[in-house]
């Protein structure tokens, strides 16, 4: 219980600092959980990250399995709420302000100015994800096929993901 309470306060603090996404505070989570308090090992830390990447839902839910592994059910609740409470507060304020001032000059400048920066960061995320996943040209080829099929057809992409899993298991990518 003391561990869960400690996790809650630490993740609450990190949740307030996580501008750009939860992955930006990953190094500090590593420091706190692996190096300082030895709640999980370095390998478990990265394995759980890959698990959350592959599972459905926001990748940030990685903090849930991390808390679960470190301190059981209370740990999972502590880390998840720790990250989501600040996000909810900030989103609430932003939504309320935006509802009132959507057409103001500042709101327009914020939206139009930040859009390309967000897109560049998103493209970088694709690039890093691809480099981590692809062993050689076949991995890049598979991603390219997925890109073209998703853009050109109405095929349900879950089929593509299933095909990727099969190709991975059979060692073809």
């Amino acid at each position, binding site marked *: 219980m003391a561990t869960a309470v400690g996790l809650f306060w630490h993740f609450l603090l990190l*949740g307030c600092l996580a*501008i*750009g*996404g939860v*992955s*930006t505070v990953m190094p500090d989570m590593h420091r706190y959980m692996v190096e300082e308090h030895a709640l999980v090992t370095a390998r478990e830390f990265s394995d759980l990250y*890959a*698990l959350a*990447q*592959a599972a*459905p*839902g*926001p*990748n*940030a839910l990685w903090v*849930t*399995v991390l808390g679960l592994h470190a301190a059981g059910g209370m740990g*999972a609740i502590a880390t998840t709420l720790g990250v*989501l409470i600040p996000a909810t507060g*900030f*989103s*609430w304020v*932003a*939504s309320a302000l935006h509802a009132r001032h959507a057409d103001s*000059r500042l709101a*327009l400048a*914020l939206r*139009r*100015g*930040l*859009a*390309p*920066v*967000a*897109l*560049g*960061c*998103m*493209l*970088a*995320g*694709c*690039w890093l*994800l*691809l480099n981590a*996943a692809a062993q050689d040209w076949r991995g890049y080829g*598979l*991603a390219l096929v*997925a*890109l073209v099929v998703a*853009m050109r057809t109405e095929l349900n*992409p*879950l089929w*593509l*993901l299933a095909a*990727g899993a099969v190709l*991975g*298991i059979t*060692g073809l*990518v």
Partner: protein
Amino acid sequence: MSVRPRDVREIFLTFARIGLSGFGGVLFWMRRVLIQEKRWVTDEELLEGLAIGQILPGPNVYNLSFMIGYRFAGLRGAFAAVGGLLAAPVVILVCLGLLYRVFSSVPFVHNALAGMAAVAAGLLLSSAVGMAAALPRRFVPWLFMVAAFVAVGVLRWPLIYVILGLAPVAVLVAWQRQ
């Protein structure tokens, strides 16, 4: 023209579907369901929402879902959206986390994850290409996009510094233009 959700229940169910199918990245499914199927938002709106979601602390897609829900039905809509987004994935992930304790050493688990990750990268890229088409056809926005990509993707600078460094300049330039 954009369409509005009928009620809070439809918001919850729609985001639940996005969360549940969001293997390897929610954003792809959010774009496919909200823009291509439901037509609740446009590419431009989604991109601008994502941009705001990114400067707010916390998970970007969580912030984005909250703001979309709020726009259609206030606070109730916001909690319907994030509740739908998280409900099923939390349960699935907790189950996977428990399974991990048992199966962490089986090699084919890792191989399957690698194949799915390559596909997920391609899917996310298709969303990015679709949203890039909504950017204005001018030099400056594309310059900021490339700068952010190089800083985060190639130079591997921490995202927070890139955003804190680029965002004020990008907003100032957009402000000046009006």
